[in-house]
């Protein structure tokens, strides 16, 4: 990252409060953007350049979808506010809104695994996460 290239951008934390990653999906930005008519914006954080989109959920809640440019592991992070409640429900709602299943998760923060598993236990898909 060079100063010139970041001067035009605002840091993610200065744009949206939803910056804490709690899960990751395997899809790429182009596919998610096209299938859901979502516009991704350029930004950066302390780690890297990134693109992000805001996904509005019900009722009156939202998450950020964040893809870092140089991540060793491709995918899109689902990010929430640092003081967010009911995070497992938000992750489940995000998958539903994006027409994805728990199988599309490549990472889930361990603090929310149990609650998320209980939420989706009636779904036919198995929750398969990384080792």
């Amino acid at each position, binding site marked *: 990252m060079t100063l010139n290239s970041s001067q035009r951008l605002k840091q993610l934390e200065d744009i949206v409060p939803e910056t804490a990653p709690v899960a990751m999906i395997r899809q790429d930005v182009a596919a998610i953007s096209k299938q859901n008519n979502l516009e991704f914006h350029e930004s950066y954080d302390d780690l890297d350049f990134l693109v992000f989109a805001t996904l509005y959920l019900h009722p009156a809640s939202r998450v950020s979808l964040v893809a870092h440019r140089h991540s060793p592991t491709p*995918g899109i992070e689902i990010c929430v506010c640092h003081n967010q409640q009911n995070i497992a429900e938000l992750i489940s709602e995000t998958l539903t809104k994006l027409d994805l299943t728990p199988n599309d998760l490549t990472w889930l923060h361990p603090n929310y695994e149990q609650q998320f598993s209980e939420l989706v236990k009636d779904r036919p898909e198995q929750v398969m996460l990384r080792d």
Partner: protein
Amino acid sequence: LSYGPFYRIDTDEVTELQIRSKEIWGKARRNIYQGINPAVKAYTQWIGGETARGIVFTTEVPPDPDSWAPPGQVQWSGERPGVYVEDDYVKINALEIDYYP
């Protein structure tokens, strides 16, 4: 014990400040004591090639467990020994730090 090397892609200005201070920073919001803690973040590998610029560092502060961060990343969240908050930033001290690549 030394942990690393870890990598971040930063602005030239931030890189300079971190190398001079030997501190790695993560921006925090004001309400950091509620819910999820903000964290210092880094990559476990460099895939920025020759065009991206940033830092490589090691630290004596153990990262959070691997599963707490997305794949390919590590983080230090706190507050705990070695992880501290100053102004709007969460910080850890680097043992060795340099420009990368």
